[in-house]
């Protein structure tokens, strides 16, 4: 009992530590990120003043870095769904230390992704037209609907399992923290006192959400892919796009999650809870999805390449041999083959190896979105010379600002909210300890259809 209480104490202290103490390194990171975002704001002001002519996009290649980054961020947002929802549904116990970070990443990625669509608009001042005059038949409206629904569901799915931990913060930080923070936790904890009625409500809410959010997430990236697949551009006109994009989204989501986990683990000393096992398991999942992506690519490329209808030959040349060959082969070898190799080779099957694989995958998946957009538009529609596209400083600045905003939001979150799902981790630990038949006298845990805080069993 004492050992369990000690373990519990250590867990809670670890969760509370980031909120209690803020070091110089944190402020250095924040200042840097804010500076990058500031530069991005300046670039956007230039774009608003002079028009989209300051980008590299033109009539022939009318979408570029912005839309590629939008698709990339929406893809990353599938991290939360996979880890949190799918692993929760399948009751994989190892997910518990990771769920909170995954849900953070989802919400932040959706916000950043939506921003990039707005940045890409020629008339952002007319954004409300989308809501006033929206046409149900348009893929962009489907996109707006899906992302709004997914954002709402994700915020809810982030908040609901966090309620018990927010209550923990409310209780333990009441004396130490400032007035506004106390108010924040009191409000957000919505009077959680671990009552049975509350536990039941929480359990049913989580149960419904975890099932509901899976089809919502699948629909989101399917609908994003249909922005391309509902046109008649040769590389985009494919029935496979929906599944292809969803697989790619989950794939890139796992990679980003590994990276975020590694950084936060190092920064906030979570080594005891986020172990090498977690990185390896996620690495296996990533390798599995890499295999799915290879299959999808073969399916797409072989089916079109075997016949070489008009436009496909041009596309294959630009992709495999000419202008986009370096990007494509890096994506294939570094982004799809390498993670599988790294996961299979025992020497690299560790935290460092998985993080390296994740970095490769993240880079490769952004590159893949980029060349899907640009090569799709580059295939000539009429007899003219194919155009070329190169992003300008405005586009690169806004990309940097978007990534910085992503990092900043996550950083700020970690200073305000518990980065680890304390009650879930504790519950998992208890179960593990009980199963291992430890000598610590614990109350037998009855089967209850709701969550339980460890305090109930430990006393």
């Amino acid at each position, binding site marked *: 009992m004492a050992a369990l209480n000690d373990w519990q104490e250590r867990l809670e202290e670890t969760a509370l530590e980031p909120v209690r103490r803020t070091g110089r390194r944190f402020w250095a990171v924040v200042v840097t990120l804010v500076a990058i975002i500031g530069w991005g704001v300046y670039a956007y002001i230039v774009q608003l003043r002079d028009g989209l002519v300051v980008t590299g996009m033109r009539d022939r290649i009318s979408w570029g870095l912005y839309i590629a980054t939008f698709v990339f961020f929406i893809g990353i947002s599938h991290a939360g769904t996979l880890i949190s929802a799918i692993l929760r549904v399948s009751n994989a116990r190892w997910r518990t230390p990771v769920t909170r970070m995954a849900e953070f990443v989802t919400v932040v990625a959706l916000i950043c992704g939506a921003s990039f669509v707005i940045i890409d608009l020629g008339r952002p001042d007319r954004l409300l037209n989308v809501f006033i005059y929206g046409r149900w038949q348009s893929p962009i409206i489907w996109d707006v609907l899906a992302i709004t629904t997914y954002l709402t569901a994700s915020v*809810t799915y982030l*908040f609901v399992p966090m309620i018990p931990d927010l209550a923990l913060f409310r209780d333990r930080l009441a004396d130490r923290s400032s007035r506004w923070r106390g108010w924040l936790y009191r409000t957000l904890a*919505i*009077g959680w*006192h671990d009552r049975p009625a*509350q536990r039941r*409500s929480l359990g049913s809410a989580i149960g419904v959400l975890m099932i509901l959010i899976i089809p919502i997430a699948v629909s989101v990236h399917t609908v994003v892919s249909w922005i391309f697949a509902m046109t008649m551009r040769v590389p985009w006109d494919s029935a496979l796009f929906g599944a292809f994009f969803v697989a790619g989204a989950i794939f890139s989501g796992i990679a980003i999650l590994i990276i975020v986990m590694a950084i936060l683990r190092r920064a906030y000393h979570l080594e005891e809870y986020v172990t090498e096992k977690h990185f390896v398991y996620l690495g296996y999942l990533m390798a599995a999805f890499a295999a799915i992506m290879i299959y999808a690519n073969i399916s797409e490329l072989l089916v079109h390449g075997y016949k070489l209808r008009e436009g496909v030959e041009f596309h294959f040349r630009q992709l495999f041999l000419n202008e986009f060959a370096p990007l494509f082969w890096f994506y294939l070898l570094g982004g799809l083959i390498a993670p599988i190799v790294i996961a299979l080779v025992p020497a690299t099957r560790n935290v460092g190896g998985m993080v390296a694989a994740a970095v490769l995958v993240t880079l490769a998946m952004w590159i893949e979105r980029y060349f899907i957009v640009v090569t799709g538009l580059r295939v000539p529609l009429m007899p003219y010379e194919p155009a070329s596209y190169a992003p300008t400083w405005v586009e690169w600045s806004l990309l940097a600002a978007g990534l910085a905003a992503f990092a900043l939001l996550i950083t700020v979150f970690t200073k305000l909210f518990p980065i680890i799902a304390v009650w879930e981790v504790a519950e998992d630990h208890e179960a593990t300890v009980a199963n291992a038949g430890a000598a610590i006298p614990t109350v037998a845990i009855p089967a209850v259809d709701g969550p339980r805080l460890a305090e109930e069993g430990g006393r």
Partner: protein
Amino acid sequence: MKAITRRSTRIVAGLLAGCAILVAFAGPTIASHVHVSVATVDEVAIGETVAIPVALRGTDGSPLAGTVVTFYLHMAFAGVEGEAEIGRVVTDDSGVASLTYRPRLAGHHELRIEYLAAGAAEVETTSAVIEVTGGAQLYRSPAGVDVPGVGVELLMVVLATVWTILFWVVLRIVAIARAGGEAGEVGLEARR
């Protein structure tokens, strides 16, 4: 030589001229052995078709088969006026060429009908009058398939379902808040 007097030359020339004149005038009559008749065309409305039969017979009354009959209509559009061909039919064994005509503008129209009979030197013309009454829009855009129920309605049903469930979850959160709200300090003391 003296037998061919000037007088006789003149007579012969006059006879030849007279024959020439006679032939000149009678030529067409002699060549035009075609008798054409166009049946009166009923009044027709836009959207309907009407048959305009043209019967060609030789003077001997036998039907003229295999003759091309061309129909023209005077049109005006965007400041340009002129005659446009609207049909070409070949007479059949009974000497009748019938144009199946679908008028495209209401009003009083006069069609000009041309035909060149075999053996004739020139094209001959006749006419027909058609009264066309106004009608409904003829041309329809070809695109689109309407499957009832599969469309916007389906999207709405799916959206309504999803948002209803999300609403329900929000109500669960409200339930949590309420279940803890009236308790005061009870829960906090239990934890200490």
